């Protein structure tokens, strides 16, 4: 994200999901140029871990060349809890389906911003790639 104009604003929401033995990294540059006075950026990096052999890392790069700008960065890591899965199970929802619900809920903030056709596709894609990842 490069800010050039005065009073420009931007938001970055990154959501990562790591399953199995995977490791996910977020690297993002936010650059605020000298002329971009009073500009603002907010970045949020969330990651969701499935299982105990995966990991997630966040490397924010922030370059700010003027003093009137505000740049914020937040990062969170969460896990699909056994208690969440059991709660779904108790309501008759099987474990695979429960994971899909939890993951979709987690991605909602991003999926909501996508055009309709694309969001449907992305949702399907998530379901396919997570198949069998709960064990």
């Amino acid at each position, binding site marked *: 994200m490069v800010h050039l104009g005065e009073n420009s604003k931007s938001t970055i929401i990154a959501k990562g999901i790591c399953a199995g033995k995977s490791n996910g990294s977020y690297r993002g540059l936010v650059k605020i140029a000298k002329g971009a006075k009073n500009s603002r950026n907010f970045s949020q990096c969330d990651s969701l871990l499935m299982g105990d052999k995966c990991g997630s890392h966040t490397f924010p790069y922030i370059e700010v060349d003027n003093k009137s700008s505000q740049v914020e960065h937040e990062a969170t890591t969460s896990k699909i*809890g*056994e*208690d*969440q899965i*059991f*709660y*779904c*199970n*108790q*309501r*008759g*929802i*099987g474990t695979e*389906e429960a994971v899909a*619900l*939890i993951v*979709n*809920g*987690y*991605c*909602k*903030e991003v999926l909501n911003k996508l055009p309709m056709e694309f969001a449907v596709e992305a949702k399907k894609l998530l379901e396919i790639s997570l198949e069998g990842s709960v064990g």
Partner: protein
Amino acid sequence: MLEIKNLKAQIEDKTILNGVNLKVNKGEVHAIMGPNGSGKSTLSSVIAGNEDYEVSSGSITYEGDDLLEMAPEERSHRGVFLSFQYPVEIPGLSVSNFIKTAINEKRKAFGQENISAKELLQLFKEKCELLNIDKGYLSRSLNEGFSGGEKKRNEIFQMAMMEPKLSILDETDSGLDIDALKIVANGVNSLKSSSNSIILITHYQRLLNYIVPDFVHILKDGKIVMSGDKSLAQKLEKEGYNFLN
């Protein structure tokens, strides 16, 4: 409907249930009371099928079948419902979507079609009125940012939507103010019928003023040490658990 025989259960080598016997027939309301740490919540978890607890001996029969052989979701499909003492939050998943999925999974298990949007909306409307719930709440994230009372009311709302045969209410009264307690109790009473059964787990007699039990059991050190009718709960309220000694 439900028969528990000499049930022993443990969590990580620590024995919590030490020979529980309980029989619940259709249409009955049973209250289970007992001091902290007596095993009340463990009993409800074992009936619901929480795998954190290991059953070392004894049996649970539900409608003539071995309940312990069934997966938690199968128990739910068969009509076992647990109202959680601490309901879990799932961010981004709406209450309506969660309930819709739960209803459809149950229908799928019995080879039925998914519920139609019209039917679902009708059901939502009916049950929201029953429990005095604002409809806007259906689109909120499941339990996320709910107050203690809202979480408990949400559990009873799900119970109303799923029409279970055996409902276990684990300390549903804790965290409810007196008005919310009345609403929840009225909801439960209107769901009560001659074909379903309810197990109430509670510390206080207060709830039993509103939902009148047919039987009251006292659980202590993992065993049911005394059973009686509702007067037992009143006696307990007056004298505390000390009279058991």
